């Protein structure tokens, strides 16, 4: 129990509520208050595939060292949903606390003697104070926020300031919110010894940070990259990318004179159509993208092959969720790695980027459009539900005003005028990247785009040599992107470690935390985070220079490990697989559980030699 004592700025709370009852805004109020107190925080939604009525949870981790991975050890459980009491009360860490609505008494069977129960009759209190049914439901949420402000020692000024900002133009609401906050706060102060040993104290870790979801950042990246056409079909967890794109476009892309849009968002009839729209727009010269998830990529596969073979810039954003099939649509996974790497029939291989947090979502979204146009090919921006829909503290996004889109080899009318003959698929410069023209620019630039066999001049062909020449060049072209995709992030220990970890995407945060733990246990580990595909020299060098490598990822079949064995000469035997694929964001324990047995047996081996 001692480990729960005095956890200043180091604790995780889980809040269990009912989907659709307005708890989301109460929870983000809480998260934001802690953030504004300067504390490193992260917030994770655990939500059902349901609109109203099922249990939903929100987890807030405060960690003074800045660890942002999920931590499934909950010191405090806010149990507001009787439906999930049994589970919630069993999940709180020994020595922890349960804050619950005591309007109805708790079933004796649920009680535990190793946790402290803090009852607050929220429903009853709200019924006394508020008139309307909806208000009573909503204010219960604000009520538990009030209690937590007292219990965790959150600065009331910060909360009040936020409420005032939020309801600046709705004075009526502000009153009821204040009442509810006070209601919870006063009860806590009167009934319990506040604050608890888990508590917050102002720090200075967030002044250059922002709190944002990956999807919002991705969408903003699309705006800044100059994307004008977005096509999509709604799917969790990618929907909020387009919601955000629409919002930013409303704000930044409406022509002030005419009130007309400098963008076009097409809600397609399905993902096949969304892919076709992106490819059509890319062919016509716009920067175009589609946000989707695994099921959508499956549907788009035929079109992706067309874009690959006909060499049409196109950006596919895959916010992964748990597969296969519909799987668990509101849970996270890194299950589409193989899918995006080789999507479509025939020989194909695609550029893919793997951001680890919202800041990289923003930066890589911009990079995705540059790469797509430079290499004239589909580019996949691969994030996941955890990155996309959860709240992350990241360094404030920056923008270099000198940035200009890399349009690649697109010929202007003047340039076309100067060339003697234009051939779409001819490798003029010897870099495997041909020149491209856009429709409607110049008659000499015309060519026929097709997914059927074509020779380097763009003519239809069924000739073996002519066909091979083109597909070989395309292979070379895509491979040459390896040194232009975001390069891996590498962490090494002095002198180099015997063990290495390779991971990617949002698994990064758990790996970083686990790595510190291992180091403290006397097991230094080098670490490489893959950020782009195809793999370049840096990845190969890292694999070469380590004898034992743990490939940490969030899927059942070790897809990253498979990719590494396909794409490099690294022997399979060197790559141990560490996997977690149950649908929650990765936590340090998953990584340690996978690595420790190997390390321990190696230690035994060493000792006996």
């Amino acid at each position, binding site marked *: 129990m001692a480990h729960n004592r005095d956890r200043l700025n180091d604790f995780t709370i889980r809040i269990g509520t009912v989907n659709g009852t307005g708890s989301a805004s109460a929870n983000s109020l809480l998260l934001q208050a802690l953030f*504004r107190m300067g504390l490193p925080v992260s917030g994770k939604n655990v939500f059902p595939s349901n609109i109203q009525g099922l249990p939903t949870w929100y987890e807030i981790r405060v960690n003074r060292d800045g660890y942002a991975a999920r931590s499934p050890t909950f010191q405090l459980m806010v149990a507001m949903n009787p439906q999930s009491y049994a589970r919630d009360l069993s999940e709180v860490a020994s020595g922890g606390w349960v804050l619950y609505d005591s309007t109805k008494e708790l079933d004796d069977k649920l009680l535990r003697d190793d946790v402290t129960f803090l009852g607050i009759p929220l429903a009853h209190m709200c019924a006394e104070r508020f008139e309307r049914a909806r208000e009573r439901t909503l204010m219960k949420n604000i009520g538990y926020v009030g209690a937590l402000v007292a219990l965790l020692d959150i600065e009331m000024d910060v909360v009040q300031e936020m409420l005032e900002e939020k309801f600046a133009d709705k004075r009526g609401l502000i009153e009821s919110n204040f009442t509810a906050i006070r209601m919870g706060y006063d009860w806590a102060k009167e009934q319990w010894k506040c604050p608890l040993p888990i508590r917050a104290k102002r720090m200075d870790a967030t002044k250059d940070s*922002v*709190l*944002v979801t990956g999807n919002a950042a991705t969408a903003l990246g699309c*705006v*800044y990259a*100059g994307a*004008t*056409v977005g*096509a999509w079909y709604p799917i969790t967890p990618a929907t909020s990318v387009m919601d955000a794109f629409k919002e*930013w476009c409303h704000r930044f892309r409406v*022509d002030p004179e*005419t*009130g*007309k*849009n*400098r*963008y*076009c968002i*097409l809600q397609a*009839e*399905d993902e*096949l*159509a969304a892919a*076709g*729209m*992106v*490819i*059509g*727009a*890319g*062919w*016509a*010269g*716009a920067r*175009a993208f589609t946000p989707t998830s695994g099921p959508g990529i499956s549907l788009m596969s*035929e*079109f992706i092959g*067309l874009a690959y073979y006909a060499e049409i810039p196109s950006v596919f954003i895959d916010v992964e969720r748990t597969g296969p099939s519909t799987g668990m649509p509101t849970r996270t996974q890194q299950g589409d790695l193989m899918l995006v790497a080789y999507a479509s029939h025939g020989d194909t291989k695609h550029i893919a980027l793997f951001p680890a947090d919202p800041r990289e979502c923003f930066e890589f979204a911009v990079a995705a459009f540059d790469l797509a146009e430079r290499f004239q090919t589909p580019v996949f921006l691969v994030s996941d539900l955890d990155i996309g829909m959860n709240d992350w503290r990241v360094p404030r*996004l920056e*923008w*270099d*005003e000198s*940035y200009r889109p890399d349009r690649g080899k697109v010929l202007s*009318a003047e340039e076309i005028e100067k060339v003697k003959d234009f051939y779409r698929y001819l490798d003029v410069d010897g870099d495997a990247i041909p020149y491209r023209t*856009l*429709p*409607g*620019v*110049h*008659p*000499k*630039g*015309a*060519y*026929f*785009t*097709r*997914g059927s066999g074509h020779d380097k001049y763009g003519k*239809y062909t069924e000739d073996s040599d002519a066909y091979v020449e083109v597909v070989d060049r395309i292979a070379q072209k895509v491979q040459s992107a390896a040194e232009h995709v975001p390069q891996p992030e590498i962490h090494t220990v002095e002198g180099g470690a015997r063990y290495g970890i390779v991971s990617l995407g949002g698994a990064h945060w758990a790996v970083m935390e686990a790595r510190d733990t291992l180091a403290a246990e006397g097991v230094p580990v080098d670490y490489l985070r893959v950020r782009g595909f195809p793999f370049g020299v840096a990845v190969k060098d890292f694999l070469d220079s380590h004898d034992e490598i743990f490939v940490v990822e969030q899927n059942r079949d070790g897809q990253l490990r498979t990719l590494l064995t396909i794409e490099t000469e690294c022997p399979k035997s060197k790559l141990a697989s560490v996997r977690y694929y149950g649908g929650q964001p990765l936590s340090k324990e998953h990584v340690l559980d996978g690595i420790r047995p190997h390390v321990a047996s190696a230690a035994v081996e060493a000792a006996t030699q």
Partner: protein
Amino acid sequence: MTYITKPVARHPKMRHNALGLTPRDYEGTMSTLCAGCGHDSVTAALIQALFELDVEPYRVAKLSGIGCSSKTPAYFVKEAHGFNSVHGRMPSIAAGSNAANRDLVYIGISGDGDSLSIGLGQLSHAIRRNINMLYVLENNGVYGLTKGQFSASADVGSVSKRGEINRQGPIDPVSLALALGASFVARSFSGDKKQLVPILKAGIAHTGFAFVDVISPCVTFNDHKGSTKSYAHTRTHAYEVVETDFVPLRREITADYGHGDVRAVTMHDGSVVRLRKVAEDYDAANRGAALEHIADVRKRGEVPTGLLYLEETGQDMHGFENTIEKPLVDLRYEDLCPGREALDELQKEWW
């Protein structure tokens, strides 16, 4: 910008249009279709329509799916970009490219397999979006390219070359388009250029989705006795319910418009489409009545043709989406990127 490089009077005998171009300038590569294939006649009609409309060849964008019909964009207007995409999905390519550059003349070519089976969903939504384009369905009742299977437009009782009888009812493309709310619905016959050319012209002038179903016989797999999509059957069973005349903007209008049987519709670009009803009581402005009339004609075993419905609202996909007039591809990056200051400002909300 214009790129007229041809001398205005190159060949004295050859006709020239206002751009100084000849019909040859609207041709493409040599067709590889079977000799006598209806699709080649549709191509010829398109060449004539584009020539006579003085369309700048390089301002055309030719799109198609997969099939014999979908190969034809290679056979006209070689100075235009063409895009032979994937089976049944051309409408989405059209939506995307039109979203990006609304100023081109979009011509989509499809087949009955391409449009009515694998691509039925995309066709329906292209109609719903009212994408500004000419959409030609080259309808032969079979899958030509995969060697003669019945398509969804095959009539009940139609006999295949191998002697099989089709038992499932057809999807009638024009009834479908009417029911889905298409703004321009026509049917013609590849063997009737006189009827087809003005319809194609009107379709190109139309703002929105111009749907033209063209019976276009497949000589190799569906031109035999017992087929209801053969030349012979179509010739004897076609029933023109409306006659279409297309009057381009520049030409003086001389005909009398007061006449009760003629309706004149002014297109967005100022040209005029005159519809003269042949069938009594036919009203190409009344969707419900048109549908009913078509059903009656079909019941008699006849094939109703002509510009069957026309509604010039001017509200296309860009109207729905409120897109800026200037093509998105022509916007400067500076007008698209909000810049650093805006980013800093925005991030205050994330604090």
